[in-house]
């Protein structure tokens, strides 16, 4: 599986990598032989360099090859790792981004899967697929190195092979187990580690730093850090110390067999049964068996990589059913007119909460109207917009556009008609221009529509202050970039949605679009919305009834369904819940009123 993961590395680099590792693996045995040969030749020769020069050349050749291969392997490893990881990350990103709804992404189990599958190590215990794939080649090379060293031993006596290889393997198994044990203890402490980081950030952040000073809980927060650190590291330290003791003890598995082997060959040389060259070769090759099987770090890399790849595989299984539902409805000619949207007996509850948010909701959103959604917190206003955007599917009833069920329209085609300002809009750390044109990524960037949207969203004055205009990245972390304030970002989000409208979206949904704006900007925005181009439906969510009253129609949601609907004047005349809410709000803006109802 890990070797298959090498494929994105490219044929040439991977072949070179394998050759490099293979060559490197043969060197210890090779240099043991060359060294033995050299020693024998030196003993034979007397004043004739021709006898030992070839052996010297052979030996120097192995040394030089070792240096050169080692130097070459570094960039090769890097390249293969980067390519494997790049391909893996691109696949995961495309897989997740391709899921048409977000409901499945919100499941904590799926979020964990994504975290693991992203292959972005947060600590030394986590590895990438590239690490694992390269390490797997390394593991194979290890076996080759051990086998070739063992082959040299056979020259003297076959029984040296089991004598050295069995304890060497046992020692490797022990150390491998110990390493993975430390990794497990580490992973186990991750929760406490995050807690320590959390309280550390609390001390270091300017906002909580203010509270921490006035309230004087600095010492308390530091104590929290210490408690979490002890909880995380206590077991780690204990295990690490135990592992060092076991490492020291397993040295006996090397010392005793090596002593026996060295003694045996030495006795043979003293007795004249074996040349000194063989003794040198056995000394070096015997060591070579242990050196080859020594390092166990690659176990960590392969195991870690397998975890990442298994998570990606699971993620694929989880996301597969939600992918690809083909659009079945024929494309109806639009003529730029927004569709009539109907919610029919729609019911919905967020998965895993057991709470019903929408319940038997019937609603028409008429082409070209400005519809305001009002209601108390939790009435389901934002949820309704999310269903409208196809981010969730209704658990009961259906939503139709011009009579066709949204599921049959096909989500990409449906969303092409939408522009939405969500409450938690996205802050792209990209140039300002991209921040606006990503409002509708399906069409090539249109500078004219972009400028118009910017002007309408009140973005012009923000833009004027940017050092590089449209090209300025909106993040201080990028060169020449700047950070925007909450209010400025809100204008960017508005411009983004308006850009989508100017490039063809027909339904504009605004969910509390002015939460960060001051009074003046808010008033200006609503005037513009009322003067919007014909042929665009606007759905507006706002708490401010003074703003909302000027909409074509106001819909009050309550208990998951439409409670009242009509023009402001009608609803005031009706003297129902809306009228009460409006009066309450109006009251709050007069001094000296009694405190009656919390909105």
């Amino acid at each position, binding site marked *: 599986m890990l070797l298959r993961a090498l494929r994105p590395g490219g044929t040439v680099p991977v072949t070179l990598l394998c050759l490099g590792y293979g060559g490197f693996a043969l060197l210890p045995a090779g240099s043991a032989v060359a060294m033995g040969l050299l*020693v024998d030749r*030196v*003993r034979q020769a007397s004043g004739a*360099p021709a006898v030992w020069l070839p052996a010297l050349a052979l030996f120097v050749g192995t040394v030089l090859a070792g*240096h050169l291969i*080692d*130097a070459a392997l*570094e*960039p090769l490893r890097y390249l293969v790792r980067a390519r494997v990881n790049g391909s893996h990350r*691109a696949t995961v990103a495309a897989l*997740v*981004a391709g899921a048409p709804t*977000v409901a499945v*992404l919100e499941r904590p189990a799926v979020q964990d899967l*994504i975290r693991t599958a*992203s292959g972005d190590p947060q600590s030394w215990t986590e590895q990438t697929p590239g690490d694992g794939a390269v390490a797997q080649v390394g593991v194979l090379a290890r076996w080759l190195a051990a086998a070739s060293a063992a082959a040299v031993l056979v020259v003297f006596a076959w029984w040296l092979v089991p004598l050295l290889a069995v304890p060497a393997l046992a020692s490797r198994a022990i150390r491998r187990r110990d390493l993975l044990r430390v990794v497990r203890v580490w992973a186990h402490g991750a929760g406490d580690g995050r*807690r320590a980081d959390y309280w*550390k950030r609390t*001390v*270091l952040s300017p906002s909580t730093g*203010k509270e921490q*000073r*006035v*309230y*004087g809980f600095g010492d*308390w927060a*530091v104590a929290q850090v*210490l408690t979490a650190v002890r909880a995380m*590291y206590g077991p780690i330290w204990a295990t690490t110390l135990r592992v060092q003791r076991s*490492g020291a003890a397993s*040295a006996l598995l090397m010392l005793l067999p*090596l*002593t026996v082997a060295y003694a045996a060959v030495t006795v043979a040389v*003293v007795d004249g049964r074996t040349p000194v060259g063989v*003794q*040198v070769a056995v000394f070096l090759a015997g060591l070579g068996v242990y050196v080859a099987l020594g390092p166990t770090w690659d176990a960590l890399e392969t195991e870690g990589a397998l975890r990442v790849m298994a998570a990606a595989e699971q993620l694929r299984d989880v996301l597969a059913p939600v992918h690809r539902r083909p659009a079945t409805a024929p494309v109806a000619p639009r003529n730029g007119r927004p569709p009539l949207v109907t919610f029919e007996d729609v019911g919905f509850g967020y998965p895993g909460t057991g709470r019903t948010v929408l319940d038997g909701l019937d609603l028409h959103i008429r082409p070209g109207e400005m519809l305001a959604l009002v209601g108390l917190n939790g009435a389901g206003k934002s949820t309704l917009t999310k269903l409208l955007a*196809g981010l969730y599917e209704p658990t009961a009833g259906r939503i139709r556009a011009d009579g066709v069920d949204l599921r049959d329209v096909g*989500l990409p085609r449906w*969303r092409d008609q939408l*522009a*939405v300002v969500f409450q*938690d809009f996205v802050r792209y*750390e990209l140039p300002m221009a991209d921040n606006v044109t990503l409002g509708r990524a399906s069409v090539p960037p249109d500078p004219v529509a972009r400028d118009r949207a910017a002007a309408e969203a009140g973005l012009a004055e923000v833009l004027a202050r940017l050092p590089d205009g449209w090209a300025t990245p909106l993040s201080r972390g990028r060169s020449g970039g700047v950070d925007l*304030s909450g209010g400025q970002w809100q204008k960017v989000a508005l411009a983004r949605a308006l850009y989508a409208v100017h490039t063809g979206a027909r339904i504009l949904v605004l969910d509390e679009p002015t*939460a960060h704006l*001051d*009074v*003046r900007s808010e*008033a*200006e925005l609503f*005037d513009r919305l009322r003067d919007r181009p014909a042929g665009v439906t606007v759905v507006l969510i706002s708490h401010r009834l*003074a*703003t909302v009253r000027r909409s074509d129609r106001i819909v009050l949601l309550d208990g998951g369904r439409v409670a009242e609907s009509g023009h402001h004047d009608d609803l005031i005349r009706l003297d129902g819940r809306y009228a009460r809410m409006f009066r*309450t709000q*109006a009251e*709050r*803006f007069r*001094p*000296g009123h009694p405190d009656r109802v*919390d909105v």
Partner: protein
Amino acid sequence: MRRYPGLWWRLFRLSFRARPGVAVAALTCRLLSLVTVPATGLALSWAVNASGAGLRSTALVGAAAAALAYTLNATVEGVGHGLGLVVVDRTGLLLLEPEILGEICGIDGLDHLERSDYLDRVSTLDRAAWGLVAAAWNALDSLVNLARLGIVLALLGTVTPYLTLLLVFAAVPLWFDVRGRRVLTRTELATAEDDRLQRHLFDLATRAAPGGEIRVAGAASDLVRRQARAWRNVHDARFRAQLVSAAWRAGAWTVFTLGFAGALALVILRADRAQGTVGDVVLAVSVATTVRGLVQQTVAKSAQTAESGVLVEPYLWLRRYAAEARGGEAGHRAAPRRLTDGISLVDLTYRYPGTGRNALDGVTVHLPAGSVTAVVGEYGSGKTTLVKLLCGFHRPDGGRILVDGVDLAGLDTRGWWRRMAVAFQDFGRYQAPFREAVGLGEPGDLADDDRIRAAVRAAGADDLLDRLPQGLSTPLGRDFGGVELSEGQWQKTALARACMRRSPLLFVLDEPTASLDAPSERAVFDRYLRRARDAAGDAGAITLIVSHRFATVADADLILVLDGGRLAEAGNHDELIAAGGRYAALHAVSTRGYATTSGPPPPATPAR
């Protein structure tokens, strides 16, 4: 650089205090590693010579010594490294980190958390404690490695002085390795921005929260493409740097190997002429082949030690800065037990370092004891700066704040804080049990559930508490699997925290309600107005309410309108409306939609 040895020495002493036994063992392993390589060479040469000469027992001792030396060589370093890690962890995380965090917390001002040049240093220190101690041990390892290299070369010199020439050849790779490494570091820095971008885009493409907007806009595939491009930019550049560095190294080691081959030929010639032995050849070879590893380790450890400069400088800066802050002319007077006169701002002026404009500019006003004062103004008008000066986070550049006639600068800052309660706009959302999230407002009362419940009641958060599944013990926040609160609930928690102080002299609400809609904000303020008037009695406490909304503060005794750092208007609601100035105009905008007649709406934008 000159201060470094002193720092390393101090960190070593800390290390030996943290876990003496383990530290001694780690040090012993390092000392042992000094001799294991020469020992292998000597033992090998001994065994070979004695075997060749037919000396059975001597040869056997040599063979056993070789086995022992190899085993030690293979074990000591790993064990020493493992033991060293434990010492570094314990010293860094249990001793040095609390010291650093304590220094940061202990500085009364806020400059070190706000000014970007300071903040860069402080945020580096976030993970510095471990790194600093590790750097001290790295420095030791560099020394040990240099010593090993020296011993190895000296041993070769005993075979024939010519072999010491290898020192020259070893210097070539040492120098080339450093060069190659520098190329890598430079490229890493140069591509860091694209790497961050790549991460950011991956995050956007795979997280649920931004997923909605990205899907509606059809931006997903675009983001995936951009992520892949940024990834390629980063790694293409870094691969090229790797190639350059590999070329340097290949060249360097070729030079070294040729030098080594020459030296080896010399040794063999000497053996040939019976000036040396075969054992010498074996010794020279077995020892010289370890030189590469030693050089690479030496370079790596020295590079790590040198990199620690990015931690050492901020650390030394912090110690200096904290010492200066402690030694500054801080006041020592205690805060008054109760306010009789009030707080006077006299020609108060402040400018943030590095900016070209006064954030507060000559503000003079008196806040009477027991009053409720509202500060209104648009973004950037100086409201928050005023609050920070009142908190003593910054010292005024001009003018004074007088608390019952005493300059705030003359008061002991911590004592003043103990008589303040503040709910900030960017209040903390503490991922802790509800008890602690509230009780932190008065850490001394953390164990007093009755006191905490009283604060919860005072903040009108009883309904929230009732709904929490485990009452006061309910863990809050998603980070650690607690109950996630809505914005409004977090904010009630923050207000409850502000209510923990028993008798504050100054109670500040610095827009903790900014994310609420105006009517809800007003409801919160109303509650505090009443509470403030109830509580003001005994201590003469002043309540200060800050808002960018002009319509929500109408009931305050005194309304201050700030504009561009200056006090534009001051008075109560009726006076300001009558004055027909800025306050009146903006109040009209905020309320215009609520006219009870249903005629056409008034014009949108008020005349400035």
